[in-house]
């Protein structure tokens, strides 16, 4: 069964600036850690110490350009996902972060022009299949290009690991 709830999410906004690198998302000292719940305790530890204490399930990160640049560490999207973040919406993404996020089932959505129109604490609603982000607090709507079908399929399976198993079952 496909998890349809994945494709409409809503939550409170946490804002970040441009060029937020993966070292800011999870500091390098935690890289030997592989447990996602443990990593989640250190999300944004150096740059937003309140984040972990205050983040709620479903919250949405809204950032500027080049979000997730730097190291390829998958620890970064995993920490956000397991901290409860449902989606990251940014002006643009560094490619490995973008790929990693989708691979682990965290929504990463490039939306041009959204950062300056969004404030910390706003309520956002995202319709992934239709390609719409709505800022309910400010009653503003943004559009984005929906994912390719195979990305949707992968997200529906819960990420690349389960998707790969399914492909292997089909001998693909």
């Amino acid at each position, binding site marked *: 069964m496909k998890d349809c709830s994945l494709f409409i999410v809503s939550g409170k906004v946490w804002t970040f600036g441009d060029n937020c690198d993966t070292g800011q998302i999870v500091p390098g000292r935690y890289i030997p850690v592989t447990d996602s719940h443990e990593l989640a305790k250190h999300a944004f530890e150096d740059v937003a110490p309140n984040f972990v204490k205050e983040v709620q399930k479903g919250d949405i990160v809204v950032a500027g350009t080049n979000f997730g640049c730097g190291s390829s560490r998958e620890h970064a999207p995993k920490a956000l996902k397991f901290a409860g973040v449902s989606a990251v919406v940014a002006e643009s993404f560094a*490619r490995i972060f973008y790929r990693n996020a989708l691979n*682990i089932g965290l929504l990463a959505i490039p939306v041009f022009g959204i950062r300056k129109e969004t404030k910390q604490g706003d309520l956002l609603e995202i319709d992934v299949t239709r390609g719409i982000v709505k800022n309910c607090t400010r009653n503003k709507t943004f559009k984005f290009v929906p994912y390719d079908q195979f990305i949707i399929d992968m997200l529906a399976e819960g990420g690349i690991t389960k998707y790969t198993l399914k492909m292997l079952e089909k001998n693909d």
Partner: protein
Amino acid sequence: MQGTLTQKLLAKAAGREAVQPGEIVHIEPDLVMTHDHQGPMTLCEFNQMGIKKVWNPEKIVIVLDHRTPTQSTIAAQNHQLLRKFAKDQGITRFFDVGEGICHDILAEKGFVQPGKLIVATDSHTVTAGAIGAFATGIGSSEMAAVWARGKLWLRVPETIKVILTGKPPAFVGGKDVALKLLQVLTTDGATYKAVEFHGDGLRYLNMDERMTLCNMCLEMGAKNAIIPPDEVTEDFLKEKEITDYEVITPDKNAEYSRVIEINLLDLEPLVAKPYSPDNVAAAKEVEEENVVINQAIIGTCTNGRMTDMRLAAKILEGKKVKPGVRFLIVPATKKVYLQAVKEGLVEIFTNAGAMVGVPCCGPCGAYGMGAMADDEVCITAGSRNFVGRLGAPEARIYLGNSATVAASAVAGKVIDPRSMMGGV
């Protein structure tokens, strides 16, 4: 086939005549690599899939280079897991603690060849483009999926053409070309794109310098960087007795999304100031700002090769590192380390007051060495000067070429190496 070199390599891998930017291709890589930073998570994901055997142990490389020499119990446990995994799976291209940095090992051992398609769980995988390969970084879960199935998807990127002309002046190298390019493109100017190098200026960049240049293209957001194979490539591979590779070159009428020309003759030693690799200024200008340093670093996959060792020795010979500056020199691989010993460079470094470390990634991200306090300043030949990259968030990191770093270590402040050595 028509297209840029990256398009042609992806078309070939996908078994297609030609591919266009924006298309998604599904391919089987020629070589995949992981290390002890992303490898443990890759292994977790792979084990969770419940698959017994990897798709092809001969195509997999594992290198222990980030948390080495083993820095903590958790690192030792991670190393143990990867060692056992390699043995159980019959992965013979396994490089244990002390062998060196993964990207340099791939190049040194001849695993990177023109036309090959390489993915690895490291952002600086792009370094291999210096040898004419398509090489890009992926994450841990994706690598686990590749280990299982041997397939991945790639979006065909647009290509930026960079034409290098002229001969670089003394103490200007691949690092300065990269910093110049960062100044032009900024840290996201090449995001999702390929960067392809052309021009007669390339002949003045040896393979070490080319690897530095391609390595730093990641800091511009590039998906991959690539230098079409030429005589420098041929000589580099001939030394390894590799001659039977296919030479694929970009088409004359290929379409590029942007063309940038850089005259190497006009370049000077450059420095990236905190906290971004694109915050670039001339070393000469920064010298006037009187930036006193506490630490200097030569090493990492950006600048830890013989060219860097020789350059550092040329500057340090007969001089002393300024008291109060801790100067770390970490050769990229065991081979570089040994050669530096043979040439007497390690003696020069040690006499000058520098410390020479075991080949590893350490000083790039304060992995067991090179950590800094909040009010400290470092100049490094590495690639990143982000907030907190070397520990304390307030520490200030400057990036420069190896000559700039060595001269600054002696001066005790960031300087243009030509101020010490002449050559202006």
